[in-house]
């Protein structure tokens, strides 16, 4: 490495633009920060030697330089921004509720444009490989750009000396020469700077007053936060990092909590839906406008159990109650890192149906015998006291006719239908009965007996989601660090004022990384009561 020795005696690393100690421009390196003899000095990184501006030979250098460029970083962000907006033109596949498969959905709903959208893969834009690459490149860029700058900047701010080179002073944006200033003025300024909470360092009469240096680390702190966040997001691709499962639990039922590997069980004591009172004066008008019922609350009253024995297949678990609670939208129930959410529900699912057998010809429909079918777990045969036997020959929990054949849309008893075979005592040939809600058929037309519904029990089913997410702490910490970093960088700023004694009076120069208005105000206050005019803003003059 070719070290650069400055006339002030300080030895600077290769690539330095302004001497770390005194700020004298290193002649051969002025092009790096675009400095020009007549212009103000570029103070962005205090003229420190950045790797990206110094080496450009090997492939590593080239990659480093590419990713450390703010221009490249901005382009990456801008492209990501535009790409992200494309994904909102039509709904993303994961967010649309349609039962249609994607290849049909987009075409049917959005025609040609939809089809193109689908074919370009925009229906799953945020999961596409190129979107991931964009995000990953932003991450890489963040790391490299930050390291490239923070290290030399840190060095430079650490080595800085109060005594500055004259050129450095003259080419600051705020600069003034107060030849008429007195010794008294000089001390007054220093005192007033201290009052304004500047940290003042003096060396042979040269003064450096500095404030808020820590805000210079803001960008790097916030970038570290972003990187932690991105790494956290990356962890979601590790399957064991999070659990996402669903379970339907009927009222009164106890079910294993999916996703907990058989450790926890949940009982649905009661599921409640509450609506707003339509006559409530307060909301009456609005509820009417929204067409009636507005939901107020969805809630599952749940009991949680933990399994106490070894989990063996086929063995009924031994359960111990561990928690009781209400699960509402916005109020998940938590246990052992798992959060259980109220996601969906199904009202009035049939639980049991009770039937009676009677003679078809009997006008009073006098019961010969009754039996009750558990619709979730029906038996295949029911024997009545008086020797009648009824076989449940076919059962459709949610009945529909499909291509002329009876079938079931789902396994949930929402609209049950049955085919019963009735065996009167001593008879070998059964009578066939078809029963559904609102219909009772006798396919043969010769049945002697008939089955009728006498009673039914209904219940609600709650749909819960079980989540456990080990990536959340990373995201939380990343987010918090990011916030600290932006606030640090944005709400504070790094102000420096230099005073250089001259044969007559002194020179003043000032620099801040942002908020020049604030620095000028500080200077005004510091010079208050002295004969010194506030230094000129050399940039504004040019306007």
């Amino acid at each position: 490495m070719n070290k650069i020795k400055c006339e002030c005696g300080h030895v600077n690393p290769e690539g330095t633009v302004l001497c770390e100690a005194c700020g004298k421009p290193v002649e051969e390196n002025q092009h790096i920060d675009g400095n020009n003899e007549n212009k103000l000095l570029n103070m962005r990184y205090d003229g420190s030697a950045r790797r990206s501006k110094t080496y450009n030979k090997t492939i590593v250098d080239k990659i480093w330089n590419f990713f450390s460029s703010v221009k490249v970083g901005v382009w990456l962000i801008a492209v990501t921004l535009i790409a992200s907006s494309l994904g909102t033109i039509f709904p993303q596949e994961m967010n649309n509720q349609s039962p249609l498969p994607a290849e049909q959905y987009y075409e049917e709903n959005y025609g040609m444009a939809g089809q193109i959208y689908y074919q370009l893969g925009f229906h799953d834009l945020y999961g596409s490989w190129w979107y991931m690459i964009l995000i990953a490149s932003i991450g890489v860029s963040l790391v490299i750009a930050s390291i490239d700058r923070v290290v030399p900047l840190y060095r430079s701010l650490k080595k800085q000396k109060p005594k500055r080179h004259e050129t450095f002073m003259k080419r600051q944006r705020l600069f003034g020469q107060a030849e008429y200033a007195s010794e008294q003025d000089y001390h007054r300024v220093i005192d007033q700077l201290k009052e304004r909470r500047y940290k003042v360092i003096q060396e042979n009469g040269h003064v450096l007053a500095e404030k808020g240096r820590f805000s210079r680390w803001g960008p790097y702190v916030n970038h570290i936060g972003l990187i932690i966040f991105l790494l956290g997001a990356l962890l979601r691709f590790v399957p064991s990092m999070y659990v996402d499962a669903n379970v339907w639990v009927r009222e009164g039922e106890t079910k294993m909590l999916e996703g907990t590997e058989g450790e926890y069980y949940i009982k649905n004591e009661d599921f409640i839906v509450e609506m707003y009172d339509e006559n409530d004066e307060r909301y009456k008008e609005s509820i009417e406008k929204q067409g009636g019922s507005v939901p107020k609350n969805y809630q599952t009253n749940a009991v949680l159990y933990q399994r106490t024995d070894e989990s063996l297949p086929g063995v009924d678990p031994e359960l111990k109650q561990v928690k009781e609670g209400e699960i509402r939208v916005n109020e998940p129930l938590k246990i052992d890192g798992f959060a259980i959410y109220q996601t969906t529900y199904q009202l009035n699912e049939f639980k049991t149906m009770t039937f009676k057998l009677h003679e078809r010809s009997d006008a009073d429909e006098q019961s010969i015998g009754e039996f009750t079918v558990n619709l979730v777990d029906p038996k295949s045969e029911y024997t009545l006291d008086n020797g009648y036997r009824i076989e449940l020959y076919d059962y459709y929990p949610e009945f529909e006719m499909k291509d002329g054949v009876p079938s079931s849309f789902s396994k949930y008893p929402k609209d049950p239908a049955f085919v019963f075979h009735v065996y009167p005592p001593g008879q070998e040939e059964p009578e066939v009965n078809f029963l559904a809600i609102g219909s009772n058929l006798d396919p043969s037309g010769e049945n002697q007996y008939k089955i009728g519904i006498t009673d039914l029990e209904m219940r609600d089913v709650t749909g819960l989601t079980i989540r456990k997410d080990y990536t959340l702490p990373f995201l939380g910490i990343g987010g918090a660090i990011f916030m600290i970093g932006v606030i640090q960088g944005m709400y504070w700023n790094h102000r420096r004022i230099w005073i250089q004694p001259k044969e007559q009076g002194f020179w003043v120069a000032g620099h801040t990384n942002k908020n020049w208005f604030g620095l000028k105000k500080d200077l005004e206050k510091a010079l208050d009561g002295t004969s010194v005019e506030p230094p000129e803003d050399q940039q504004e003059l040019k306007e």
Partner: protein
Amino acid sequence: MELSTISSNLLYASFFLYLIATFFFGGTIREKDAQQKESKAGKIGITITIIGFVAQVGYFITRWIASQHAPLSNLFEYTTFFGMMLVLAFIVIYFIYRLNVLGLFVLPIALLIIAYASMFPSEISPLIPALNTHWLYIHVSTVSLGQAILAVSFGAGLLYLIKTLDQTERTKKNAWLEFIIYTLFAVIGFIVITSGFRLGGYEVTFEVPAEGEAMEASTVDYTLLPIVGPTDGTLQTEGATGPLLEAPSWMQGEKAARKLNTMIWSLLVGLVLYVLARLILRKRVAAAIQPKLSRVKPSLVDEVSYRAVAIGFPVFTLGGLIFAMIWAQIAWNRFWGWDPKEVWALITWLFYAVFLHLRLGAGWHGEKSAWLAVIGFAIIMFNLIAVNLVLAGLHSYA
């Protein structure tokens, strides 16, 4: 008087106070004395603004009591609150920089936003379970405070552009600036036409054929004269004038045609108003304003615009992304779901990140930075208006 009536009267009061304050800030550009701080009109202007703000806070609190939840739950409430935050942000920035003309640019934007808000149904509505949590207040209030501070940056950016663009020639930049001014006229157009028809008590109903086989035909109510009717819709109201055109069939949702109709009306009325303004002024609107800004220091305006972003960006990040994610995790059990509203919050955030990098890294000051402030605000408005009304998602209130 009922609480809800008091509440809406307070809102009216604040609206008129802001309006009056705007005139006083306008008065400051005529004052001869150079010292900003000494300006009498400026002092009166900011005082009235603060009284107006207090009145609006009064509206907010009384409505909160009346509805038993923070009034942040529908488009009317949210947009009004946004206007209030904009005034707050202006007051804060005013006391940092004492830039009187800024009031002349920011307060009208706040007025437009509040007027725009009152075009939406304003009855007190109950909270659905998903919104019934204190995260609603935490999230929504910080987002809109953040967006409002960023909007101040737009006000300053617009001021900068009007002040500095060369108006002696016809250029692309001038055309764009006029376009921005025209969009403000279109908002006025929307307010004028909506209130006009509302005063006239206009309403017609269309019947729209069913979409799926199983569905029933539905009806759509129009409160503006239908220029564009729903696809295959039939007018039900007797004696009503029919639509000139039908909405193209690819437009989704039963309300799409009505939204398109409202949009066309707003743009047309805005155009009429704009052309009138041009005829009266006999030059570009910006060119007419420019000479009045002769005493404005561009570098200070530029700094205000940037400072607003510097202050607003962290607030927006906190409200629009961090609180949003926490709430989404609690309410929908996923902190991020690529819902359009979420994506547009991300886009806003990325955009201002670009703004800051260009400003810090590539030295984009002055005019370029002002254009960016304008675009940023356009993105915020897109998220506030278009995403709610056009792109469907979990967040669409209306």
